[in-house]
């Protein structure tokens, strides 16, 4: 007799998903899947709209990292208005966008670490679910909760100053930006009252990293072995191989660090990447064409970025990067839970870059927009907090969008998340008949490490809880649990 377990809804992630786990009569896991069951639609309803609306329209995909969609769309439209691919903007245009992006990274990573994942580190994967949340953190470690909230606030304020609003702003326009930074705004971030200033944020980012390192050293076996599996890794890198979250060339390495995608111009992404549709999920499965569906899938996000880049162009993050790389002797890191470690190094990098940019007089410049010979098609890539984000648009003769293709970070991580779910299910559920809350959360911890944005991935609307169900071969439900 075989069984099917369903986890629905998945919690402390953005969007709505469920997990099904099929077991045979002996209780061995046969197959596990993460299903994204929401409606996908943005690529369709952006059709017919004037192209300059896209950065404002498509960012509504998400309320956590709308800036990434806003900027990826704007970068694609830079190509369409003849402003080049990323390096053709005015210094003020590019640096204001970068500041917006680092602000976004800082707030989104802080949200993920403190609000969504830290409860698992503080209270344990099988800790009491009643306190295993941000409220539990606020009650037991108030200083940590305040730090999380204020780091997020600082990032959001940077976004407000560059995009006009904390969520769903309008700063980036085709060919540049619609505002510069005022001296007052700059000084507020540089010299603001404690804790809301750039120095404090760098220091708090270091503290968060120390907190995770402490957790890691105390739980090394668990962290190292939790859902470990080798994979390819893909991200943008700067032309010289540096970590660059805003612009660069597309690089992929295999599990041993060998380059399998050689720093290509992302305008040609479609020559290298293909998406597979599977009937049980609204989320597609991208892979590198050259290596096929079985071997060409890859991971994106913090883990992947620190595996593909050669160095980090900010001193404190570079120092941490060297310590981190030493864990795997310079080889790619394939440990699922060390995604959190990589994320916090990026948080520190974002804080350092914010600090550096705020001291750059180009932000106060008035030359905001560049335009050149109009093109019909453009691709914009950016490293969103959750990984590489692709926006691709084609327009008609009347300036209306006639084709849009979005490959969002979570879609890129679809196959790895399914692998992660399968690994954890095998290790905690094999031979078990009854699902405990702890088992269910272990599966969610694996998904959560990727910081997925499930509604983003299907370009959907609505909330995102997760559910697990156990079903026998005759489709009789044996057990079912929901988390809210």
């Amino acid at each position, binding site marked *: 007799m075989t069984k099917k377990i369903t986890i629905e809804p998945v919690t402390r992630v953005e969007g709505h998903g469920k997990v099904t786990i099929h077991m045979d009569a002996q209780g061995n896991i046969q197959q596990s899947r993460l299903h994204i069951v929401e409606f996908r639609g943005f690529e369709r309803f952006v059709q017919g709209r004037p192209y300059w609306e896209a*950065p404002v329209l498509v960012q509504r995909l998400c309320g956590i990292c709308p800036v990434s969609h806003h900027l990826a769309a704007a970068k694609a439209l830079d190509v369409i208005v003849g402003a080049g691919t990323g390096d053709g903007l005015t210094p003020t245009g590019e640096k204001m966008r970068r500041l917006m992006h680092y602000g976004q990274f800082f707030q989104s990573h802080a949200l993920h670490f403190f609000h969504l994942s830290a409860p698992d580190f503080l209270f344990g994967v099988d800790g009491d679910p009643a306190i295993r949340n941000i409220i539990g953190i606020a009650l037991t470690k108030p200083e940590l909760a305040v730090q999380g909230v204020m780091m997020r606030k600082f990032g959001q304020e940077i976004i407000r100053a560059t995009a006009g609003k904390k969520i769903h702003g309008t700063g980036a326009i085709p060919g540049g930006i619609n505002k510069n930074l005022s001296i007052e705004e700059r000084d507020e971030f540089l010299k603001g009252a404690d804790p809301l200033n750039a120095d404090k944020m760098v220091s708090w980012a270091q503290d968060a990293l120390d907190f995770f390192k402490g957790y890691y050293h105390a739980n090394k076996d668990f962290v190292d072995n939790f859902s470990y599996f080798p994979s390819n890794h893909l991200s943008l890198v700067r032309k010289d191989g540096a970590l660059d979250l805003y612009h660069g060339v597309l690089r992929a390495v295999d599990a041993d660090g060998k380059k399998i995608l050689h720093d290509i111009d992302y305008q040609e992404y479609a020559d290298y990447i293909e998406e597979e549709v599977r009937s049980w999920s609204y989320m597609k499965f991208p892979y590198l064409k050259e290596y096929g569906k079985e071997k060409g899938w890859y991971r994106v996000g913090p883990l992947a970025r620190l595996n593909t880049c050669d160095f980090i162009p900010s001193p404190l993050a570079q120092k941490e990067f060297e310590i981190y790389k030493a864990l795997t002797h310079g080889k790619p890191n394939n440990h699922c839970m060390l995604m959190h470690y990589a994320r916090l190094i990026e948080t520190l990098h974002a804080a350092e870059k914010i600090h550096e940019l705020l001291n750059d007089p180009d932000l106060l410049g008035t030359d905001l927009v560049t335009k050149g010979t109009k093109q019909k098609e453009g691709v914009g890539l950016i490293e969103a907090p959750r990984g590489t984000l692709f926006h691709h648009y084609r327009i008609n003769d009347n300036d209306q969008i006639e084709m849009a293709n979005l490959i969002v970070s979570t879609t890129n991580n679809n196959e790895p998340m399914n692998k992660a779910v399968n690994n954890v299910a095998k290790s905690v559920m094999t031979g078990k008949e009854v699902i405990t809350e702890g088992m269910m959360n272990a599966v969610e911890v694996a998904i959560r490490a990727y910081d997925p944005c499930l509604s983003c991935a299907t370009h959907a609307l609505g909330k995102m809880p997760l559910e697990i169900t156990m079903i026998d071969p005759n489709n009789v439900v044996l057990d079912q649990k929901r988390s809210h």
Partner: protein
Amino acid sequence: MSNLIKFKIDGVECMAEGGKFIVEAAAENGIYIPTLCNMKGVKPKGACRICSVRINGRLMTSCTTPVTDGMEIESESEEIRELRRSIVELLFVSGNHFCPACEKSGSCELQALGYYYQMMVPRFPYEFPQKGVDATSSKIIKDQNRCIFCKRCIKTIKDEEGRSFFAFRNRGHRTEVVLDPVMAEKMDDATAQLAMENCPVGSILVKEKGFDKPIGTRKFDKQPIGSDIKL
């Protein structure tokens, strides 16, 4: 010779030149009565009804009714506010007004009135009508989803010979305001810009320059609609 007369709006003593339309006379006395189809310098026609007031028990449009001596006008009673709120709601549900992605957001008079009358969710069902976007002009886009048929573009956007760039097409439920294809070829940048500015909503958009006004500097970002009139 001065032709000053006295009248009252919501009990407040006002004075204006006799024969002026109420909406203008009210503004001169620092009282805001909302308008959508009405524009200064253009013959009023009372199409949108948002400026409705009650005079001697009757509902009248204040953009087309001249003020007279001793007139008592009710404008901000709960009944009139409710009437105006429902007109705003009806305009929202009868088109496809998606403010989040509209570049006129923040400068849109319909949106500003929605805030002014504290519209939360329209009480009427959305029609979600099937409307098109005419982007064939090299200067502007005419988005029919957002048109409220105020006729401001037809009345104000004209060439030097007085010929209008815009016109009504079809009748009844199929009515739409369109850019005359022959006139469209004569449209210059300044005319296109004026057409966008005169449109109270986001139905007329100048091509290739959207969202260039940062949030915080748009028409209604700092003050609600009518603030320039209110004393």
